[in-house]
């Protein structure tokens, strides 16, 4: 049994052992001078683990008595997390060097954050979920404190930490109530109990708190408050990490929790998710329409994506079909790629030696650097969900799933695209408006450059081929119901 359990959790084990070894090695030998090699090695390990999980055939199985589930859904999200992190880490290096943060705890902490994310998406038990999310919060807080250099950054870090802790508190509280009400911790046992007793008010309250806590980590409205500030104030590299990954992780955990404890087409889960998702969409759309701050705008876009994904999940839960879940996975995948690629450029963008913060500061960039401006345009339009870019696939699938559950929600979802896309179009307009001032510029390391152009190319060609992503997402979504 134990051998089988360990085999199931082998990728996580490999990552953990590697991180501990790297940590020990750095502490015992040359410390910060090893930062570069450790980042390289961590990237390599993450990339390799991603390949391993993506391409080695594996059956759906669980380990440690259902604590960890290794199914197509977990594998899909794990690959997404590993590869995004694998690209983000080395990309952050230049920024770390510039700000004097190029120290070995950074890759180690980031690695542990990723490890916690892998465990979170696999968690099939409330206890495992709590442990994983708590480790994630710890690792993220550690990462945030590394970047603390100015009073403003300290304040933002504090806010970020408080946000995470509030989320964690909600999760802990929810789990406690849920366990007290049902006496079960495993998802399948929970489902069986809920099916018999209907759970009562306590179980509902517990589940709502738990979902709300995960929504905090996902940065969904009304728990998004820390996202915009974090995006605006965090050091570049961290902003990238924070933009995409905890979001994917928390939403994946939410999806598994929703499907595996509630069963198809029942419970209050869908209603809460509709409120959270719809609220995120509305808030993000109208906030984006008038947002002058560039990175804050990107943060709104991320919240918008979260809203779409949550609504897709809600539709999937309500109808008991995988289509909405597939749509949610596609939205999250596109978001992860697009945000990473866009931030690869935006975080390094400077004007007169100072970071570019306002949308209007992008003026003149279109003429100064047509290629990068075009790539950024593609990414921004893709975030806006406009055809003919790949983002429209996620939007279309989500609305399709929604219209099967609640046609009015599909209409609202489409309608909020209007203010949202109008807000994003301002970026395009700014990019191609001539200016008398010096246009912004960014010295990008080769990897960031490749990420920017690669991301744009993927989204540009996304309607021609998605390299099987759509099918993989479908398989992953279906796995939740098996």
């Amino acid at each position, binding site marked *: 049994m134990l051998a089988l359990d360990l085999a199931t959790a082998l990728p996580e084990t490999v990552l953990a052992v590697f991180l501990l070894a790297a940590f020990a090695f750095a502490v015992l030998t040359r410390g910060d001078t090893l930062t570069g090699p450790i980042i390289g090695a961590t990237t390599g390990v993450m990339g390799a683990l991603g390949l391993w999980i993506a391409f080695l055939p594996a059956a759906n199985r669980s380990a440690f008595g259902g604590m960890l589930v290794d199914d197509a859904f977990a594998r899909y999200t794990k690959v997404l997390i590993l590869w995004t992190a694998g690209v983000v880490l080395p990309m952050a290096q230049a920024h770390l060097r510039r700000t004097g943060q190029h120290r070995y705890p950074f890759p180690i902490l980031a690695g542990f954050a990723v490890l916690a994310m892998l465990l979170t998406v696999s968690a099939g038990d409330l206890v495992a979920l709590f442990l994983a999310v708590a480790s994630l919060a710890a690792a993220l807080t550690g990462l945030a404190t590394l970047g603390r250099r100015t009073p403003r950054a300290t304040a933002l870090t504090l806010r970020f930490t408080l946000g995470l802790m509030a989320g964690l508190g909600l999760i802990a509280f929810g789990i406690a109530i849920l366990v007290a009400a049902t006496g079960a911790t495993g998802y399948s046992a929970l489902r069986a109990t809920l099916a018999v007793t209907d759970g009562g008010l306590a179980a509902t309250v517990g589940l709502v708190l738990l979902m709300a806590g995960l929504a905090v980590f996902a940065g969904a409205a009304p728990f998004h408050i820390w996202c915009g500030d974090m995006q605006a104030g965090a050091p570049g590299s961290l902003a990238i990490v924070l933009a995409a990954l905890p979001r994917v992780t928390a939403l994946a955990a939410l999806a598994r929790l929703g499907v595996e404890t509630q069963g198809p087409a029942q419970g209050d889960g869908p209603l809460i998710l509709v409120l959270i998702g719809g609220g995120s969409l509305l808030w993000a759309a109208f906030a984006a329409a008038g947002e002058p701050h560039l990175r804050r705008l990107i943060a709104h876009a991320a919240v918008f994506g979260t809203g779409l994904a949550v609504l897709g999940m809600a539709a999937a839960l309500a109808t008991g079909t995988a289509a909405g879940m597939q749509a949610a996975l596609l939205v999250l995948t596109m978001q992860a790629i697009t945000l990473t690629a866009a931030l690869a450029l935006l975080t390094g963008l400077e004007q007169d030696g100072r970071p570019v913060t306002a949308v209007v500061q992008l003026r003149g960039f279109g*003429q100064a650097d*047509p290629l990068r401006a075009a790539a950024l345009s593609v990414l921004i*339009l893709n975030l806006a969900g*406009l*055809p*003919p870019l790949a983002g*429209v*696939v996620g*939007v*279309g*699938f989500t*609305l*399709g799933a*929604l*219209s*099967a559950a609640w*046609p*009015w929600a*599909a*209409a*609202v979802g*489409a*309608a909020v*695209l*209007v203010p949202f*896309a*109008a807000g994003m*179009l301002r970026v*395009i*307009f700014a990019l*191609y408006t001539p200016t008398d001032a010096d246009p912004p510029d960014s010295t990008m390391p080769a990897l960031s450059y490749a990420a920017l152009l690669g991301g744009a190319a993927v989204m540009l060609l996304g*309607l021609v081929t*998605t390299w099987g992503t*759509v*099918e993989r997402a*479908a398989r992953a979504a279906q796995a939740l119901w098996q």
Partner: protein
Amino acid sequence: MDNLLSIVTFLPLLAALILAIFLRGDDGAAQQNAKILALVATGATFVISVAIVTQFEPATTDFQLVERFAWVSDLSYAMGVDGVSLVFVMLTTALMPFVVGAAWTVNTRVKEFMILLLAIETLLLAAFLALDLMLFFVAAEAVLIPVFLLIAIWGGAERLTAAFKYALLALISLAALLTAVTLLWTAAGTTDMGALLSAAAENGPLALLGDQYTAVMALLLGAFAVKLALWPAHVWLPQAMAQAPTGVTVLLSAVTVKLGAYGLLRLWVPLGAPGMELWGPYLFALALAAILFGGLMALVQEDLMRLLAYAGVAQMGFVALGVLGATRQAIDGALFAVVAHAIAAAGLLILVGALRDRVASTQIENFGGLVVRMPVFAVVFMIFVLGAIGLPGTAGFVGVVLVVTGVFPAGAWVAILGALGLAVAAAYGIRLYRRVVAGDLIREALKAIRDLDRRELTLVVPLIALTLALGIAPSLMLDLVGPTTEALAATFETAAQAETDTATNTSAPIHIDTADAATATAAPTAGAGD
């Protein structure tokens, strides 16, 4: 050639890629090369697209030259042509060289300008030829981005307002169409237009869509009304026309606006019969209001571009009237009006663009007596104005007459008010001509104005030939599209008949409750904001 449609569709995009990758520099020679390459590409696209006409079997009403490949998930990349799409495809390929020609005076960022024009041609052709609902949506709505950029970057002083007004309306249209398409997709379980429309024809649109029928039809109408610049969703057009460079005005008015007409013919007519039963008079009133409002607004404009924009609004009202009439004559008329307006508008806009290049103004008060210095201009302008107001002998006449006679069965008042629109058109046409061309030349600035040069003449002469040819021998086009429009009208008629039968039979399973219908419309129309 098995992939004729794809070749025609993607040839402009290929040229755009070549421009993007291989053309370097922004000097005069590079700019000239960009223009020539764009002209050659659009010209070649037109020449190849003639093969579509020659291979097209007019008698067959099914989709022809069909290509089908698996696309994302269960969607497919499916293309095909029937009588209706043939008209729009040929219109696009034939007019794009004129768009490029009209844009010859652009001299900033020419390469990017031409890339966007070529990309738009591919998107438009893909939208007209798409047999998959999602493919249609993607192609039709993707036009938003390049048009936004064309206005926002190359526009006049108030380009920012114009571009955002356009974008906002276009986004509303996008949202409405996206909702309608997803609802149709969910209801029919397929995105294949052929399958969807035959399912609708078999059991009636109401059976297919159930209580979402009202919402879907309202959304489709709203989405396409914005694209067609139909009153009251026309608000983006006058400003966009006034601000955009000449090439873009031709593109907007002559080609992209027609996307709305195509959408209405492709989706509204086959599904619209129960809707006409329910809201027929109101919809007719809407189209008539567009005709009269557009005409009256054109009568009081002081800016040439805005005047032509409002004249376009009126003409598109005729197109909408024909679509709503849905008899064979009315549909033929709508198609004809689309083509006639496209040709006349292209000609007029090129001429107004020529004036703008010379005087740097489009205010009517700055002109007058042009006939003295510009006799050729005066003649050509006369022909296009007459074409635009629908004088016999021009293509415009055929379209309007077919529409008016075609909607007669729906009610004499509709036809009479429609005909009144013709009188208004005559009034603004004559006023326009009198104030710009006729009279004495008294303005100093005009004393040295040049007549049309060779480039401008080369652009307008084929358009004159085209409008006269179609005006004298409408059968050139009607024979090609006749069987398709007849089938379309028959589908509508059958559905309408079934609807009447159901309405008289109280125990019928399909019955639309007005209260239900009202609630179904409330949310989406409020959301779509049309």
